[in-house]
């Protein structure tokens, strides 16, 4: 059959291309190898190009479907957030679109406050999607995160037991998302779990922990943090010490005073001074004045900032002397303190400026005076 076809094939269709191919195709085995490689490379390149086009097309279609879904449900969410009653009739939510529904719900929640969020929570429960959010906690990372975000907005303590095990998840993002959800449910209880766990999780970066502490509030942070600090060993404890600034300064103050008394490391002294700065207790003045003579410029700066918070009218002399400090930052902070000291009028500042002998101190005070005049 094939041979018949070959014999009846016109010369321009079969023979000419064959001749051309033979003319190009080399006889040398080395050249043949090169040509095979070229063909393979060209094939690979075309395949990659096709993959790019295919991926682009898939993404475009998915994006269009998603857009259509969001357009359909956005009015529903808007009505839910405005009214205590669920809008009628309820749109049909196919099982395959439940994840998109939760994503859109999470996104809408981010834009709402107060009663509107509560209404959205009630709507979710009425649709039975809270159960779907709980089920997602057993899925893969992406599902877990969608579920956790959803439960964070719901902030229902009834979901505590489902979320708590995820705090030990190996995936840092999941564990921190679980911690955030727990904080939303019950901040005090959550911090008692999170802070001891944080001591053993070096992958939980300090800024993220600080964020959790901020969300929880100082009342929830102080006690568990102090307990964790007293129970942890050296390096783990030191890592968590900066979080003290997010605690209640009244409870952190004894710790801070003890560090200043014993002359701890500069990093710890800075935290201690920030705690005392927050507290603003005049009884700490002697400790702060002592810290002003510390060799480390950052400690002096922290002490100066703490003193500034409880500065008195007669502290001009103190700040004036600090305008000659070796550290640029201390000089600037001293100038700012002087310029904003209660009772320091522009005329008085001008006369103080004439008393400054240090050239850099004068520059700093001039700058601070100009900024106060703004």
């Amino acid at each position, binding site marked *: 059959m094939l041979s018949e076809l070959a014999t009846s094939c016109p010369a321009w269709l079969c023979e000419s291309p064959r001749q051309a191919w033979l003319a190009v195709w*080399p006889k*040398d085995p*080395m*050249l043949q190898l*090169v*040509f095979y*490689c*070229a063909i393979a*490379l*060209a094939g*690979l*390149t075309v395949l*990659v*190009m096709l*993959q*790019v*086009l295919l*991926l*682009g*097309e898939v*993404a*475009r279609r998915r994006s269009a479907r998603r857009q259509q879904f969001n357009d359909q449900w956005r009015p529903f969410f808007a009505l839910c957030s405005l009214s205590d009653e669920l809008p009628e009739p309820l749109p049909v939510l196919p099982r395959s679109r439940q994840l998109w529904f939760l994503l859109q719900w999470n996104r809408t929640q981010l834009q709402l406050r107060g009663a509107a969020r509560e209404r959205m929570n009630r709507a979710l429960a009425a649709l039975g999607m809270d159960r779907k959010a709980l089920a997602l906690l057993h899925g893969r*990372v*992406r599902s877990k*995160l969608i579920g956790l975000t959803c439960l964070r907005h719901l902030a229902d303590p009834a979901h505590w037991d489902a979320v708590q095990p995820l705090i030990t998840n190996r995936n840092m*993002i999941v564990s921190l998302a679980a911690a955030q959800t727990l904080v939303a449910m019950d901040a005090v209880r959550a911090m008692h779990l999170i802070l001891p766990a944080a001591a053993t999780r070096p992958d939980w*970066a*300090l*800024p*993220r922990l*600080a*964020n959790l502490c*901020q969300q929880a509030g100082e009342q929830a942070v102080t006690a568990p943090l102090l307990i964790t600090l007293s129970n942890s060993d050296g390096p783990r404890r030191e890592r968590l010490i900066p979080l003290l600034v997010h605690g209640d300064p009244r409870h952190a103050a004894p710790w801070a005073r003890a560090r200043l008394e014993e002359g701890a490391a500069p990093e710890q002294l800075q935290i201690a001074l920030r705690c005392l700065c927050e507290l603003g207790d005049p009884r700490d003045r002697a400790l702060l004045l002592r810290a002003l003579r510390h060799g480390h410029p950052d400690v002096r700066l922290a002490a100066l900032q703490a003193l500034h918070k409880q500065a008195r009218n007669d502290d001009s002399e103190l700040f004036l002397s600090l305008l000659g400090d070796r550290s*640029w930052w201390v000089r600037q902070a001293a100038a700012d303190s002087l310029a904003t000291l209660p009772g320091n009028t522009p005329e008085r500042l001008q006369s103080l400026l004439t008393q400054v002998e240090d050239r*850099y101190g004068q*520059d*700093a005070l*001039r*700058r601070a005076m*100009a900024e106060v005049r*703004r």
Partner: protein
Amino acid sequence: MSIDWLWWLQLGFILYFLLLNGMYLLLNLLSMVSLMSYVRQRAETGEIAPYLGIEPPVSILMPAFNEEATIRTSVRSMLQLQYPEFEVVVINDGSKDDTLTVLIDEFELVPHPEPLRQAVVHQPVQAIYRSRRYTNLRVIDKANGGKADALNAGINAARYGLFCGVDADSILQRDSLLRVVQPFLEDERTVAAGGTVRIANGSEVRGGFLIRAGLPSNWLARFQIVEYLRAFLFGRLGWSPMNAVLIISGAFGLFDRERVMAVGGYRTDTVGEDMELVVRLHRYHRERRIPYRIRYLPDPICWTECPEDIGTLGRQRSRWQRGLAESLGRHARLAFSRHGGTPGWLAWPFMALFEWLGPLIELIGYGFMIGGFVFGVVSYAALTAFLLVAIGMGILLSVNGLLLETMSFRVYERRRDMLRLFLMAVLENFGYRQLNTFWRCRGLWQWFSRRKHQWGAMRRSGSWGQ
């Protein structure tokens, strides 16, 4: 004897190109893994950059030299960035045009008696201005000293612990700072982070922000789009997980100010001050055994105008090559040093072999193989094999750049744009890359002959300033 020598030379060139493209393919695979993990993480944590409220304050440093056409829009767009606390410090580096006047009029600047620290050296400052309308905007007017010098003045003036160097002709996304600060929040050891720079020519820009990405009509600019995709998406991303990124683009990079001051700030005697600083940071931390991270983010967070005429482009490429040679040459002691780690044992040798000396070997390779074939010294087989590895694999690499782009951010959504980029990915291997090789060799010669460096004039459309 001479036949033997010629045979080995031919083989040497073919093997060099094979190794060059093979290594890039390997880097491409590493980038693919890294990019997929990044995109997955982005999908998991949400497409929108998280706003935690604990982000450290940032000083944005904008060196400006003769930027009267674009400076107004650039500064305005900087002031509208989404970030909890930041200041913008524009450093007018002795502009000869009306850059300063435009700034004074537009932002109601008034002189401000502010002392500057002299932590890093720079040319004298003539005046410092603050804006009456924006409390977080200051302008430093100083004598001309080049971009690095201007950045040094900015570092001295910066009030915050992190500073972000931004080119005055670049466009950022609103969430650029929020994105680039993420490595600093995730890992306390981070000292620098850079993001992907994309080409804005042909895109729709409104109010200093990019509204829609598009392709330029100019073919040179289109070639550069493919080139940038290749250079950023796998030229840099592949090194990031190994903590071996040697380049953070001067157009957009976030740095820990204290660490930069500890290494002495930017060097003013190089044209590649951005790369030189990063290599110096590696060396400083490695030699002192201080834990650190230098990260690269694949997000397209900075858009820049690329040259559309061959003269400007050639000068730019020569300058880049010279900067690379200066940076690698100055820090040759990082290579294979005891504490060199991945930057010293992998990235430096790779850059030296394929990026520093590469253009020279490539140019000689092209000349020898084609000339040799014409004069009958090089066989047809050898020439074909050479062109196959030099051009065939080059096309594959460029197309892979497009694949990475499609897998990740899909900036160019239109099918027609992608097809055009395919065409560019193929065509750039026939002439454009060879021309680039020539420009880079010229840069090497300028470096070798120690020609006095100067900033080449960049011809701008200024259309963003509207």
